């Protein structure tokens, strides 16, 4: 039982990390109908810049803020230069964001150097609590808390505020919203920036938990995030959370019980979901079918 609890906590915290990456993608992919394959690149930039800010400021909070700022700026650049010319064309979106992904990954090597960087956990978050035989690593608990917080805040904003209403309506019918006198372009820039900042936040939180950052992690986790968004159903925030937890838990448990299968389990999961419920587990009707 203790082993089960330990594994479950690890799985949930992995799931929360994946959720943080996927949450930004859900916004961009699900709500704006943009297939952003450069999302993993933004995630890697978040991780690298967090490590860099930590090194110069020696403060965990500043490193997180720095990463979020990087995400916002990169999101603005991405929306303006890369995504704006290809709204509404899925194939071109895939192609152009993949190209941008290549640039982002290589730029990381140019700016921060090609080798793997070590990331440190702040002192007040390292170590662990022991409750009976159950070990809770502090940093993992912290990630779970942040993940839940981000989920609740984003969900509440989308559900209950006017901004959320505008975004959701803008997705359904761009022209109508424009006719009501709202600058939908500006709203979309904002959504894109927030989505990118969330990817960067995910990267910043990921770095201390894995201990190292490397340029290729962008592609790796970008794919993870896509899988989660697809499993969860596009545009559904709760769906992404559930799917991320599902992926995190199944990864942790198979890694322990069937190590040979652990590399493939996520893919198998997505395969099964897509086979039997191609719209994902929690589809938001109307958005994904455009």
């Amino acid at each position, binding site marked *: 039982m203790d082993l089960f609890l330990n594994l479950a906590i690890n799985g949930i915290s992995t799931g929360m990390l994946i959720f943080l990456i996927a949450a930004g993608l859900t916004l961009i992919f699900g709500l704006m109908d943009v*297939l952003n394959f450069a999302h993993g690149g933004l995630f890697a930039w978040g991780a690298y810049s967090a490590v860099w800010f930590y090194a110069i400021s020696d403060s965990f909070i500043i490193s997180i803020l720095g990463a979020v700022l990087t995400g916002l700026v990169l999101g603005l650049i991405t929306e303006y230069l*890369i995504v704006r*010319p*290809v709204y509404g064309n*899925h*194939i*071109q979106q*895939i*192609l*152009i964001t*993949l*190209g*941008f*992904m*290549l*640039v982002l*990954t*290589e*730029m990381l*090597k*140019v700016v921060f150097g090609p080798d793997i960087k070590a990331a440190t956990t702040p002192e007040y978050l390292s170590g662990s609590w022991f409750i009976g035989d159950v070990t809770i690593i502090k940093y993992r608990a912290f990630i779970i808390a942040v993940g839940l917080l981000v989920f609740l805040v984003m969900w509440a904003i989308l559900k209950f505020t006017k901004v959320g209403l505008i975004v959701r309506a803008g997705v359904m019918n761009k022209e109508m919203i424009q006719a009501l006198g709202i600058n939908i372009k500006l709203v979309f820039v904002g959504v894109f920036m927030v989505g990118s900042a969330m990817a960067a936040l995910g990267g910043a939180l990921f770095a201390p938990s894995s201990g190292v950052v490397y340029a290729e992690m962008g*592609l790796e986790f970008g*794919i993870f995030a*896509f*899988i989660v968004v*697809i499993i969860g159903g596009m545009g559904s925030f709760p769906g992404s959370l559930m799917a991320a937890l599902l992926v995190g838990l199944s990864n942790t448990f198979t890694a322990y019980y069937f190590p*040979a299968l652990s*590399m*493939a389990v996520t*893919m*198998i999961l*997505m*395969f099964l979901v*897509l*086979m039997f419920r*191609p719209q994902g587990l929690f589809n938001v009707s109307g958005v994904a079918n455009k």
Partner: protein
Amino acid sequence: MMKHAEKSTWIYLAVAFLLIFIPFMKDDRWFLFLMIQIFVFGIFAMSYDLLLGYTGIVSFGHAMFFGIGAYSVAVFLDLMEASFFGLLVGIIAAVLIGGFIAFLAGILTLRLKSHYYAMLTLALASLFMVVAEKWRSVTRGSDGFTFRIPDFPGILGEYRNITMYMICLLFLVLFFFGLRRLTQSPMGKVLVAIRENDQRVESLGFKIMPYKVIISVVSGVVASFAGVLYAISIRFVDTSVFAIDVTLDALLMTIIGGVGTLVGPIIGAGIIEFAHHYLSGLSDVHWIFERWIILFGIVYILAVIFFPYGIVGTIQKHWVKRKYKKRNEKAPKTDKLAS
């Protein structure tokens, strides 16, 4: 039959004929190797273009077929001690497995829409990569293995590189004309129609799925064959043939050369392989060339925005426009009346 061949056919044949003489003029081992790579990836990119350019589906798992081809021939040559029989069995296995997997994947996944399909094919390809890494008794994991290919008989054996060059060139030409025939056939027209508007095609009474499955099988078989040629040209295979980079390479080659044309991917393959070889060689001149992928990514982004038809597509478009204009100038009055 030959009388009706188009003018462009003669141009392509002439270029292929000229390519035969290149190894005799520049008998540099590296250069020959580069050309062989271009031919192999030209075939591979052409097979990708059948999906992306003609049918309008984006696959992220095309490397899977390339890897299947490479591994089938490598494993059989390894088991059967570099005999021609082993080579033959390997090629047949590559084609059959590649076709079968493409068929299965096709009927399972082609119903899904663009990005779902892309992600599913990605998932399939990474499953194959996992299998190749875990099934160590056959594939020897991520270390890969070298193998010997059977010696060419007589004088061919002495000029092994040139022979290999000729074989790859021959297959490139064969596949090029074969696939061109396919894309110009009524079936090819239906594929293009599916790319443009699948609902309209359906309402015309065509069933879309069989067409998509057939083209994905053809594409898979050709890609497997490219994998076979790749493996026997470098005589080494490892799990990197299943990596997404291979698919991305094909994608970039197709985009830069021109989607929806079969010459385009070949030209794209040439550009990318040359760029890869020479730009990374320039890293002594300036450090940025070591990170040539940046330049490459920027060119690629610009190509998607400003140059969506690629090199060949843009030229073709220009040409068709001019031809159309000329025809209009000749008979302006009848045109006006007709409209």
